[in-house]
């Protein structure tokens, strides 16, 4: 292990961290950038993952960001665990195209699941090499050595010892890993070391507190929106009032009264910049643009579900087709049929998209909160026609993202504006841009049928999703077409049609699961283009499938939990369902049996469960329905959650809590509406979400820890059963079956009138 310039570069960078340094020392920045480019981290090098400084401080380089769910701490726990160093000695550098390997970004709840596995192996390999070194130095076989707090000592003779810092002396490991040749989520590079077994864990499974929270609480934590490189301009993007309209002419004189405000135009893309933010905002509001007049591109969202029903099928896929479904459905027994509807929904992140781009002749820097740091670099490079190596994309946290929100779009806008202005540009979208123009979660209908046999079990089950394509713009925004700016600049959007069907483990001898997609509602840059929104299709698909199971139980006059268990053999799934029922003190009986309350306020309890990959979740919801106002209050929840090995139980509970509240908000309040011209729900009044007045009172959690199984992700799965659990609780309380989300007061009252 010899000292090496790259290692000192590492340490230099480590200290750099915050941009504060960058801002006060721009000359140094350029020098450092030059040093960085001469040595991009390579996945097959251990030094790309773990560095130990001369003072014993450990830096792990993690190629995914933490969007605010506490992944940073989970990774630190894993690394500190495997290395046997104190947690506070470990810092994590996250998602930076010049400093970390491409581990795919935030994606499908894989942060701990896949990203953590990579770091676990790298840390274990680092430990193995250090212990080998210690063995030579101390003249004792490795199996006679132990490590604690970064000190390797002889078992039984603790005074014979050497520290990691003394061994590595601030140098490199210079060790190769066996790399599977992949980049992204599936990147894996392994060493010879065997990571610890769960019984050896000291840190994993405990709940140290997150390190970003004190800064957030004291107002000093830097978000992407807070970056201000010297000479930076504030930019705002101009969106057409009618979707699809193109600018015919722009009256630059119309903004002359705003100090140094300037119009930046490239093709159909228009931005406005000014040195002062308020000037940029006012100029963007004031700018006179003449737009092309064409036929209205959309239709009234009131007719959305009819539109989907009648629309031609672009693609159909039968995901599962067991036995003879149609024959069994026709062959008698109790037939249950229902159709469910789910609207477009928006991320509506707490702040609209914001990023800072500095496009220079010699390189591009992007400070951005896009979940896909590496893909964003590729997309921006292609958008501007520059080599991808010239782009340095640095993840900086923004408002929470729950999939592919508008962060990447704002970043692309900033890059286009900076390339036109020749200066760094910070773009923040306005609220109406965020609600109106972010990529949307897909709208769909779900037709489900089942035949229940004399044994009270489903003999046949037929499930069909029909909806808009799930992902018009790729959540990996590696092509210009995946950015709104790219579409405005004429890059054709050519998504692959795709939808989905439920994930569960019901055994039905005759079972068909299929999906169909319909044509895009409009071509060109669309405010209804879709992309992934937390648990991409989970909420809509399982709203339908888990409501339907409840409808079957009601038809069969069976207890919904018992009815589920009668169709499930998988032991892990049964364990989760049973744990949730037990926690909730579930009172057996068919839907309606748990009804309570008095006067105009009635209560009921509903059950739903699903898995997302290897993670299994069951949710019990108790609601209070006010029959006069139609208000549904999701008052109590019980959640059983199994995601393999639990790394940080307290944080896991908070992640689940956030998912369930977010899921309840979507089930009860959220619907993107549009008219023939454009999206009309462009603020928090027209697009209400759950607030403190409707927040649940209690949520009890059962975490089924399975140290024998790898961690399987928790950032999204608990979102998916929530809507059905609430709908089933509403039915239990009122006898009204909610088949269209969200369950607004108006819809609730209408359903009560019919029930």
């Amino acid at each position: 292990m010899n000292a090496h310039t790259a290692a000192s570069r590492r340490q230099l960078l480590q200290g750099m961290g915050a941009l504060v340094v960058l801002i006060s020392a721009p000359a140094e920045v350029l020098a450092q950038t030059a040093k960085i480019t001469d040595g991009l981290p390579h996945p097959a090098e251990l030094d790309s993952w773990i560095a130990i400084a001369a003072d014993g401080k450990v830096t792990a380089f993690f190629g995914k960001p933490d969007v605010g769910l506490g992944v940073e701490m989970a990774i630190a726990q894993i690394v500190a665990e495997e290395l046997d160093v104190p947690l506070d000695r470990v810092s994590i550098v996250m998602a930076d195209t010049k400093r970390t390997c491409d581990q795919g970004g935030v994606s499908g709840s894989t942060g701990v699941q896949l990203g953590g596995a990579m770091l676990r192996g790298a840390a274990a390999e680092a430990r193995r090499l250090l212990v080998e070194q210690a063995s030579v130095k101390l003249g004792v076989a490795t199996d006679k050595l132990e490590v604690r707090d970064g000190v390797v000592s002889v078992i039984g003779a603790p005074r014979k010892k050497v520290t990691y810092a003394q061994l590595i002396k601030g140098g490199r490991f210079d060790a190769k890993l066996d790399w599977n040749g992949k980049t992204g989520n599936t990147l894996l590079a392994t060493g010879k070391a065997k990571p610890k077994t769960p019984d050896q864990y000291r840190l994993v499974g405990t709940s140290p507190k997150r390190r970003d929270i004190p800064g957030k609480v004291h107002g000093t934590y830097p978000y992407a929106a807070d970056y201000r490189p010297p000479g930076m301009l504030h930019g705002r993007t101009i969106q057409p009032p009618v979707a699809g309209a193109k600018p015919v002419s722009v009256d630059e004189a119309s903004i002359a009264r705003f100090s140094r405000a300037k119009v930046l135009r490239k093709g159909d893309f228009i931005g406005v910049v000014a040195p002062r933010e308020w000037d940029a905002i006012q100029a963007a509001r004031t700018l006179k643009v003449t737009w092309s007049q064409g036929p209205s591109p959309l239709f009234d969202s009131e007719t959305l579900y009819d539109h989907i029903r009648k629309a031609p099928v672009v693609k159909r896929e039968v995901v599962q087709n067991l036995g003879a479904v149609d024959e069994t459905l026709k062959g008698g027994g109790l037939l249950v049929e229902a159709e469910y509807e789910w609207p477009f929904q928006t991320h509506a992140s707490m702040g609209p998209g914001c990023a800072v781009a500095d496009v220079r002749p010699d390189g591009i820097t992007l400070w951005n909160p896009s979940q896909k740091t590496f893909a964003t670099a590729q997309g921006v490079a292609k958008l501007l026609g520059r080599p991808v190596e010239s782009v340095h994309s640095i993840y900086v946290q923004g408002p929470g993202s729950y999939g592919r929100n508008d962060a990447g779009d704002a970043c692309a806008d900033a890059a286009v504006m900076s390339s036109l202005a020749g200066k760094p540009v910070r773009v923040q979208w306005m609220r109406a841009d965020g609600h109106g123009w972010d990529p949307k979660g897909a709208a769909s209908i779900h037709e489900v049928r089942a035949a229940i046999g004399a044994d009270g079990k489903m003999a046949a089950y037929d499930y069909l999703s029909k909806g808009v394509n799930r992902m018009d713009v790729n959540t990996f925004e590696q092509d210009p077409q995946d950015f709104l700016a790219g579409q405005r600049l004429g890059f054709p959007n050519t998504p692959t049609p795709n939808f989905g069907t439920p994930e569960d483990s019901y055994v039905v001898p005759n079972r068909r699961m299929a999906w169909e997609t319909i044509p895009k509602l409009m071509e060109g840059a669309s405010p209804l283009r879709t992309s992934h929104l937390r648990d991409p299709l989970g909420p809509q698909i399982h709203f339908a499938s888990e409501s339907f199971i409840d409808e079957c139980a009601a038809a069969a006059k069976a207890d919904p939990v018992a009815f589920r268990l009668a169709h499930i053999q998988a032991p892990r799934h049964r364990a989760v369902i049973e744990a949730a029922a037990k926690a909730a003190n579930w009172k057996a009986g068919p839907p309606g049996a748990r009804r309570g309350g008095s006067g105009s306020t009635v209560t009921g309890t509903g059950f739903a469960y699903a898995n997302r990959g290897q993670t299994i979740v069951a949710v019990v919801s108790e609601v209070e329905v006010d029959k006069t106002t139609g208000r549904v209050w999701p008052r109590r929840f019980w959640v059983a959650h199994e995601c393999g090995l639990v790394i940080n139980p307290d944080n896991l509970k908070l992640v689940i809590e956030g998912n369930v509240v977010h899921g309840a908000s979507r089930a009860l309040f959220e619907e993107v509406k549009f008219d023939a011209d454009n999206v009309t729900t462009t603020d928090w009044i027209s697009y209400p979400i759950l607030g403190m007045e409707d927040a649940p009172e209690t949520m009890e959690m059962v975490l089924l820890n399975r140290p024998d199984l790898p961690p399987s992700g928790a950032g999204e799965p608990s979102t998916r059963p929530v809507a059905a659990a609430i709908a089933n609780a509403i039915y239990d309380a009122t006898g009204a079956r909610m088949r269209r989300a969200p369950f607004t007061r108006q819809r609730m009252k209408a359903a009560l009138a019919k029930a």
Partner: protein
Amino acid sequence: MADQVSLTVDGKKRKVAADPRTPLLYILRDDLELNSPHFGCGLGQCGACTVQIDGKPVRSCVTPASAAEGKTVTTLIGLGTPEHPHPIQAAYIEEQTPQCGYCISGWMMTAAALLKEKPHPTDAEIREALAGLKCRCGTHMAIMRAVKRAAAMNV
């Protein structure tokens, strides 16, 4: 441009050359680099930009800087320090309340004002005081726990 705004922010007297009609949010963020009030909506609908003026929570995105002229403005930085945190700050850390934390000025500044007025609010009073604020990450229950914990620290 002789336009100037004078205010006291987080205990310091500050003078900024700016049009006094500019919303306070941009003066705090861009001129004074006090970044904790965030732009969430610019419409007074979400609370992400909340600061206190003379102890009262206001939404700085729709408050002209002139309204703070000669008054005392408090951001999260002035609410308490890591060494001497405000009870709501200590409670937020203890409860690990925020996820992204982008929303927290609204909740913490409003809760701090509530606790001053009513040191021991009931659940219903907390819900009422915090109604209308937005948190997209769904941390409402953790916020509730933090406010109650902070109230318990109030002697």
